[in-house]
Every structure is written in C-alpha cells, then in structure tokens.
C-alpha cells in the first residue's frame, strides 16, 4: 500500500486545480464537496499508510516522485518519506483539516470568494503534506514556505477589510481597508526571518554531511557522536530561529495574534492545529542533532517555557475572543517547544495532537460564536465588534451546542482530568520535573516553574472567557439576538469535542501507544515515566486557576460592555502592561520597523538618489565633464587660444572682413575655382620641392 503514498499529495493538488479551473462555474455546494473530498482522500491515503507501516514492521518507506535539483553533489529529489512520525502528522493534518473544511463550507457560506477560499485551503493542505511528508530538508523547506504563503493568503483573505490597529500601523501611510492584508504581510515577513535560519542550517548540513536527506543526516550524526557536538549546536540554534518563526516563539511570535484577521477556520486549521506546530515537527525530525547539542536543547526549552508564560499572561487581559485563543496557542506551542527542548519528543508530539483537537475545537466554536453574534448584529442593525467578549454574555442559552463543546475544549486546555489536555500537559511537566529534580539541571526547574505558572494562567483565562461569553446577561443587542449555527458547522465541533475528551487515550500512562508508535522513527522517542506528584500538582494548579476565575469573574459579573475588567483592580498598572501585550509590538516598531523604514527612506532618497544618482552622477561625473569642457573653453580657450585668434581676427579685420565675406559668394563655380587654386598650389609645392 506504500505505492499509494504519492496520492496523499495528488488529492489536494487535484482539489486545487479543479476549483481553480472550474470554480467559477460551480456553486458553493460542489466547490465545498471538491474541497472536502480532496482532503478526505488524502486522509484515507494517510490511514492506509499508517496501516501499511503497522503491517510492515514500522520501517520507514521512501517514495520517489521525481528528481528535482541535482547540481554537483547536491541531490534533492521530490521524495516522500513514510514513517511513523510523518504519518502521524499527515493524519493530523488531513483529519483535522477535513473537519475544518466541512466546517468552513458552512462558515464561508455566501462569501463572494468562496471558491478561492477552498483553493487556498487545499493548497495549504498540499504544502503542509509536503512539509511533513518530505524526505529531505529541502522539501521540508518547500512546504515550510508553502504553508507560509497560504498563511499569508488566508490571513489576508478579506484583503479589502480591516483597519490597522494603532500599534500595528507599519509601513508608511495608512491604506484604507488594508489591515488584514498588512497582518498577512507581517506573518510572511516574520516567517521569512525564521526561514533565514532554516536556510542557513540547511547550507551547513549540506556542506558537512553532503546530503540533505533525513537518513543521511541522522547517520552522519550518530556516527560522529559527540565529535560533531559543536556543529550540531550551531545547526540546531539556526533551526531554532526557524522554529521561532513558524511556531510563534519569542522573539518572533508577534505575527500570530495579528493572524487572527483571517477567517476563523483558517485560524483553527493553520494558526492552531497544523502549521504552527511545524516547528515542533522540525525539532522532532532533527532530534539526532538536538541530542548532541545540550546547549541548544536548553535554549529551546527556555524559549518555549518563557513563551508559554508570557503569552499566558497576555491572554489574561485580552477582550477579543480570537486574540485570547491566539495567545493561548502561542502559550501552548511554548509548552510543546519546551517539551522537545527537554528531550520529551513524545510528550511534545502528544501535546501537539491533543492541542490540535481542542484548540481547533475552541477556534471553531469561537467562530460559531462570532457567526451567531454577527447574525444578531445583522438582525438588530447594531454596530458592535462581533469578536469583542465585552459585548457578549449569556450565550449559553442561545447557543447550547456551542457552549457545551466550548466548555469541553476549555477544560481540556486547562488540563482538567481526564480530558486530553491533562495527559499531554502533564507529560510535559513530568519531563521538566525529571530534568530539573532528578537530573538536577537548573533550567529544568526554571522551565517547570514557568510552565506551571503558564498552566495556572491558562486555567484562569479560559474560565474568564467562558464566563464572559456564555454566562451572565447579554451585554448588547447583538448578543441578545444571537442564535445557534447550522449543523454543517456544529457537527465537526462535536467530533472534535469527542476527540478532545478521548485524546488522552493516545498515550495513556502504562499504555504509551503514541510512544511505541513513534519509537520506530527514532529509538530515543520515549515516553517519560508517569509522576503522580506532578499530576497532582497540575490538577491543583488547574483547579486553582478555575477557582480563581470563578471568584473574580462569576461572583462579580460584568454588567456593561464598557466596565473595567474585574482583574484590573487586583493587578493595577500590571493589567495595562498585559493588555498592551507587554508592548512587544511597540518595541519592535520602535527598534526595528521604524528605523528600518527611516533608514530605507534615507538610503533610497538621500543616499542613492540625491547623493549618488543626482549628486555623484550629475554633480561629479556630468558636471566634472562640463567643468573640463568649461576649463578648456574658458581659461584655456578664452585666454590663450582666444587671444591668438583675436590677434588673427584683428589682422583679418585689417584686410577687411567685407572682402572675406565676399569669398562666400554662394556660386558653385567660385568654389570650383577655389579647388583649382588649391590643386595648383599643391602641385606648385611639390614641384618647388623637387627643384
């Protein structure tokens, strides 16, 4: 069944082409059927690949599609790699992707660019499958940039809407309705910074290893062992730059909150479940190198933990329903990155999977909420920001299905026993505990503390969100008239809710299905031991967060849309700091963006144009030439030569200019006479010489 592997790409590509060529002639129904079928087909193929792996001793299988670049010793074919790690990712991408496609066919109903949306989504699935299915770093990079492109296109899908927020006003004069487009551009550019690191890492791998194939790289480093430690450190740190870009870690996380400008299914699919986890996949894929570079591992773990903590605190003070989830995603990605940094690859992958379930669920439910409020706003002609949680409230009764699945997602995210999030998050914390307490590394302790605090804030902000959105009384007309979404949208929610509940089964302590499955890709992909103490603390932390949220937000419910946040008195100026997102955007704006723009402007206009183009060219080259000409015609010509000729002219004047002028009679015969005169003179000269 491995022969079918290329089909995993063929299905979504076919979807793209069909909708691209015929989309304009089809109605929404057929467009969405094509889109969903394309992903569904790929999902089927992925399942078959998993079965094939299970049936053939879990050995990695390579499927050559075509040669791509062969230059000198550089050999980079289009080749798929089917092993447990890639198949896991494929299943996730296509499975969750399919659910989100179904949801999107309801969510995007009536949009003028319906076909284009599905083209983009299928294109994204293709790129993501290239990313996780490729057999070399170059193909991974193709997918890596490809998903970046799709992210750019989908964030800016409503490219004629969205006002740039004050802090995010980047790029010269404001342009009407280009806020979403700007967010997309920001995502692409920030990701490119990450790609820069990945690119350099690839170059280094190639020139040391001589190949970009995963197998060859793994072989090289296992053979070299500790001798290649320095090299591995440099490469892995460069890879980390890429991870920070794609998985939205400090310092490159700033694009992800803005990316919420895209339609909600996009946020769920790309900016929660799949694309942003590519960084974790990359680290897991390059695990051999990370294992040789303890310094890099430590940096990775600390970056992840810090991000988890920082984003968790920011999420506490946001009012935009999707923005809270965005920061939550960054925070959870921090968990995963910390996990793989600590060597807990299975834990990282485990959390990646469960997070995909419940975060996709949360985003889609948030979309459902937005959809509902939007309908309410339409019905009442109210002008409200439909994503602002302050105008919501009391939606529990209006949207029951959405409420329940949202609650499940939130509890899973908060890590409440026995939902999926509990098991995966606990595994990460246990790994951190192990590294810190058992192995005695200081950074393990630090990571554990940061992650625990992040877990606390996770429980707190999710409680806050649930209460603000669903409990209390509606705080606007729009919220009062909201209604439940169509079954096309709620059905995938239910499936995802189920997965969020049962996701923990994937790698339950004692069973370790995921661990044993992934073990076949790298032997050190092992599940850490279950630690009852850590599990207990985690549960306490989660409950504390929920309890705190209950006390702050439920017992003192917000009554009006513009009241101050209940947490504000407790935190004081700190709240403003969190509300301002630690002012990272402003910092980058002041330190990087504005200086760059100012610098580019002065480089372009002052240095290049005024100085070099006008100044140097016109003033030095051209004017220099003119000066030389002027010098020759001026001092030299005017004084020396002119005087000479003035004298001559004086002489001529004596002879009589009238006479000379009369030489120019205009009669041809006169001139002929002149010719003969000349001939006689020349001949006379020669004759006289011969005498």
């Amino acid at each position: 069944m491995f022969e079918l592997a290329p089909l995993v790409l063929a299905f979504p590509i076919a979807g793209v082409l069909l909708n691209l060529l015929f989309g304009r002639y089809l109605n929404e129904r057929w467009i969405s059927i094509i889109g969903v079928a394309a992903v569904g087909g790929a999902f089927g193929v992925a399942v078959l690949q998993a079965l094939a792996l299970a049936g053939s001793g879990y050995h990695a299988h390579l499927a050559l599609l075509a040669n791509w670049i062969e230059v000198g010793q550089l050999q980079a074919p289009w080749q798929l790699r089917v092993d447990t790690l890639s198949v896991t990712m494929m299943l996730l991408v296509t499975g969750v992707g399919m659910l989100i496609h179904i949801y999107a066919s309801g969510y995007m109903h009536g949009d003028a660019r319906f076909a284009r949306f599905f083209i983009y989504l299928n294109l994204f699935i293709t790129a993501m499958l290239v990313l996780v299915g490729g057999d070399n770093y170059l193909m991974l990079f193709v997918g890596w940039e490809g998903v970046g492109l799709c992210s750019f296109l989908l964030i800016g899908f409503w490219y004629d809407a969205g006002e740039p927020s004050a802090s995010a006003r980047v790029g010269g004069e404001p342009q009407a309705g280009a806020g979403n487009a700007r967010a997309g551009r920001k995502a692409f550019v920030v990701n490119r910074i990450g790609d820069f690191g990945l690119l350099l890492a690839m170059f280094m791998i190639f020139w040391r290893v001589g190949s970009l194939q995963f197998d060859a790289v793994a072989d090289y480093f296992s053979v070299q062992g500790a001798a290649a430690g320095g090299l591995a450190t440099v490469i892995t740190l460069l890879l980390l730059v890429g991870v920070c870009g794609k998985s939205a870690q400090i310092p490159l996380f700033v694009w992800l909150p803005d990316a919420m400008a895209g339609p909600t299914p996009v946020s769920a699919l790309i900016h929660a479940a799949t694309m942003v986890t590519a960084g974790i996949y990359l680290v897991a894929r390059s695990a051999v190198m990370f294992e040789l570079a303890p310094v890099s591992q430590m940096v990775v773990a600390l970056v992840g933990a810090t991000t988890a903590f920082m984003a968790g605190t920011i999420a506490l003070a946001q009012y935009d329903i999707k923005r809270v989830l965005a920061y939550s995603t960054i925070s959870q990605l921090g968990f995963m990155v910390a996990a793989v940094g600590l060597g807990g690859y299975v834990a990282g992958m485990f959390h990646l999977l469960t997070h995909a379930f419940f975060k996709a669920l949360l985003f889609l439910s948030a979309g459902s909420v937005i959809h509902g409020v939007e309908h309410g706003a339409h019905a009442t002609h109210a002008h409200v920001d439909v994503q602002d949680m302050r105008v919501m409230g009391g939606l529990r009764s209006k949207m029951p299905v959405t409420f329940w699945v949202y609650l499940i997602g939130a509890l899973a995210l908060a890590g409440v026993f026995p939902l999926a999030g509990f098991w995966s998050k606990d595994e990460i914390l246990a790994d951190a505990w192990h590294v810190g307490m058992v192995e005695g590394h200081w950074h393990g302790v630090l990571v554990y503390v940061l992650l625990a605090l992040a877990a606390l804030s996770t429980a707190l902000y999710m409680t806050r969100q649930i209460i603000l959105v669903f409990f209390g009384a509606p705080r606007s007309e729009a919220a009062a008239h909201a209604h439940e979404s169509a079954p096309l949208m709620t059905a995938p929610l239910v499936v995802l809710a189920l997965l969020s509940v049962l996701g923990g089964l994937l790698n339950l302590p004692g069973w370790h299905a995921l661990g044993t499955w992934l073990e076949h890709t790298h032997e050190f992909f092992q599940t850490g031991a279950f630690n009852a103490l850590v599990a207990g603390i985690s549960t306490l932390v989660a409950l504390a967060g929920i309890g705190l949220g209950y006390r702050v937000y439920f017992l003192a419910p917000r009554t009006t849309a513009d009241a101050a946040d209940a947490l504000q008195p407790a935190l004081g100026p700190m709240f403003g700091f969190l509300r301002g997102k630690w002012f990272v955007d402003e910092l980058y704006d002041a330190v990087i963006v504005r200086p760059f723009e100012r610098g580019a402007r002065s480089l372009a206009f002052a240095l290049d144009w005024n100085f070099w183009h006008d100044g140097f060219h016109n003033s030095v080259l051209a004017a220099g030439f003119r000066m030389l000409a002027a010098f020759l015609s001026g001092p030299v010509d005017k004084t020396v030569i002119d005087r000479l000729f003035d004298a001559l002219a004086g002489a001529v004047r004596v002879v009589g200019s009238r006479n000379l002028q009369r030489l120019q009679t205009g009669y041809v015969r006169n001139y002929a006479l002149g010719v003969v005169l000349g001939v006689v003179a020349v001949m006379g000269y020669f004759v006289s010489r011969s005498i």
Partner: protein
Amino acid sequence: MEILNFLSSTLLLVVFFPLLGAVVLLFINREQKDLIRWLAVVFSLATFALSLVMLAQFDARVPGEQLTVVVPWIQVGSSWNINFHLGLDGMSILLVLLTTLLTPIAIFSSWTAIQERVKEYMIFFLMLETGMLGVFLSLDLFLFYIFWEFTLVPMYFLIGIWGGSNRIYAALKFFLYTMAGSILMLVAILWLGIYQGTFSVPELAARGGIDPGMQRWLFLAFAAAFAIKVPMWPLHSWLPDAHVEAPTAGSVILAGVLLKLGTYGFLRFNLALFPDASLYFAPLMATLAVIGIVYGAIVSYPQRDVKKLVAYSSVSHLGFVMLGLFALNTQGIQGAVLQMVNHGLSTGALFLLVGMIYERRHTRDLGEFGGLWTGMPVYGTLMLIVVLSSMGLPGLNGFVGEFTILLGAFGSEALASPVYTIVAAFGVILAAIYLLWMFQKMFLGQITNPKNENLPDLNWREVLVLVPLLVLIFWIGLYPQPFFNLIQSSVGDLANSFSAAGIAAR
C-alpha cells in the same frame, strides 16, 4: 557549396534572422502598421523556432563549443587573427533561448502600446535581438566586442524615441555609462589579441598561462565593462533612469536580457580566461555583490514608482547572480546561470504586468493604486505568482536559482567564509518585504481612487503574452533538471578548474 554550408549553419541563421527581418521591414510602407507588427512577430517567432532547432542539435553531454561557425575575417599580418567565430555551449544556450523567447513576447506586448513610428520601433527591436544573440554566441573577442557595442544603438533609440518624459537624459546616460566601461574592455581585448596572438576565446581559455599580475589588470578592464552592465553596486545609477523611461518592451528586454550580457561576460571571459585573477578578486566581487543584494532590496522598498522599485530589485537579484558566479564552484555557477534565466522571466513578466496597468491608468505611482484585485482578478493573480517567483518562493523558479547560489556561496572555497551567504540571505527577507509591500499597495485594501473602479481585466492578448513566462516559472520551479542538464557539463568543467584539484593541476 562551402558558402551554402556556411549560410545554412544554424547559429548564423539564429543570429542574423532577426536582422533579415529588419531589412524586410525597411521595404514595408510605414502606414501598414499591422502588417509591420505581424511581420516583426513572425520573424522573431521564426528566430525562436530556429533556436529550438539549435536546442535539438545541441548535445548537452559535450562540454565544449558546438555547432561552430568559423570563417577568417580580418587578418592583418601575423598578430591579428580575427575570425567570424560563432559557437554554442552550456553557458550560452539558456541565454540564447531566453533572448529568442523574450523578444517575440516583448514585440507582442508593444502591439497597442506603440502607435508612433511602428516601423522604426520594430526594426530597432529586431536589430537589438541580433545584437544580443551575437553577444551570446560569438566566441571571438573582436566579434564579441562588435556585437556588444551593436546592442547599444537600438536600445539607445528605443529609450530615446519611445521613452517617457525624461527619455533623452536616460538614453544618453545608458549609452555613456556602458560605453565608458567598454572602452577599457576594448583595450584589454586588443592586448589579448596582440600579445596572445589570437582573439579566439576557446583557444585563449585552453591555452591559459597569462601572467597572474597581468591577469588582474585584464580582469579589471573586462570587469569595468561588465560591472556597469550588470549593474553591480555602486555602478547602478543608470539603471533606474533607463528602466523608468524605457517603453515597457524595452524594459523587458533591458532587464531580461541586456543586464545578462554583463553577468554572461563575467562568466565567459573573466572566469574562463583569468582564473587566477578570479580567485584573487572573488572576495571583492562577492562583497560588492552582497552589498548590492541588500542595498538594492532596501532601496526598492520606499520607492513609489513601480518601475523604479522593480529596477532596484534587479540590482538585488543580479547581486545573487554575481555572488553565485564568484562562489567559483559548481552549485554557485550553475545556480547563477539558471538565476540569470529566472530573473529574465520574473522581472520580464513584472515589467510586462506593470506596463499593462500603465496602459490603463497612465501612472505607475503606488499611491494611485489600491484594491485592484477586486476589479481585476486575473491580473492580480498573475501578478501574485510573478511576485512570488521574484521573491524566491519554493516551487517557483526563483527559489531554485537562489537556493543553489546561496548553497554554493556558503561552501565556496574561493570565498572561504559563510558571512557572504549570511548577509545575502537577508536579501531573501528583504525581498519579501518590498515585493509584498508593492503587492499590497497595488492590489489589496479597498479601492479608494475612483479611477481604479472600472478598469478592464487583462484581455486574451495580454494573457497570451504572459502564459509562456508563467509556464516556465512553474516548470523551472518544479522540475529544473532539464535546464541544469543543459548547462551542467560546460559549467561543471569551468567550476572544476577552480576546485583545489583544479588549481593544483593548473
């Protein structure tokens, strides 16, 4: 019979067929504009067909010159042996094909844009094609020089007659800059011809043995001509003028082919004839190239005139080509040759697209646009693809070239430092910044300017002009191997001579 064989040799036909077209056009009444246009397109397409015949006759496995045409031309005494010598090899074949492809496209794109003096325009264009093909195919220094200068004349008139408001200034600047550089090259050519006893490039390359000190002077003399043409930073200040003022088709050819005359010259002459000097100057040239990459990209960003933006981006892109060439290894040089083609396709297409909106709106000011995608979906989509290709998105052509170049430069023995690559890779980030900025300003956001509301989308002729370029953009991006195969053996030989073993053998 001998003369018949000579006249029917493929390369001769490829080079002079456009000129024949120009001569034929001389006899057409200037009022019959459509007939003139059709004839010009037919002649340029026939040249393209001939170049495909040439491609079929080309054997990619042979590293040296093929389909050679040699006729004694000017022989004075024993020291002057100038031959009419045309030859094809892996270094030139892609550029020849690029030229023969872009010329009909450029002519076709001027269908409606050029209404005045159509006859002269087409004649100049066909003359220009002959000149460019001659540069790529001549393997005699003297002949090369003649063709090199020959390209200047038609381009001068194309800019100076059909250009924008400041065309005379731009045309003169273009002419004088190029001319100034070529004079030094002429001196070097004469030195080579007289003191080495031959003007034949393959013979000079095979013979080698020029004193290293002298090589450096010769290298610099040739580099003066080529660096201005490329243009390398800081000699680029003629480029924005020329591009902004030139008519659309002129910009296409200028960016697509004429700039490559410079990079091709570096490859064919500087690298092949002066290997020691190339090794000596590699760090310097790579530094200039890298500065050009970053500088061009930064300066592109704040431009308001789209054409100027694209013109500066050429400085950046050709910096990549130069970096690849002076990496002096297989990956670098092959990537550079492919990137020359890529830049021709992407930037050519960009100029075509800019020309199309210019025909509709008669402005190129970024501030005048916004939200065009809504009204012109086909135009927006095609522009997006070309923009992505230009910024090196994997799967499109630009990436393959840039990646191989950067890879080559990273591990280059001649440069011996990854710093060049690290700085150059910043150019990749910057490319995303300025190109996406341009795309956003033109196509995204709301339509604020009422003049943009009812613009017609592209017509069949405009799409037809772009289709061949788009096909190649995807083809090279997804399956570049056929292209690499064409250049592999010739360039591989050259690159090997710079490897440690090659240096030892010399």
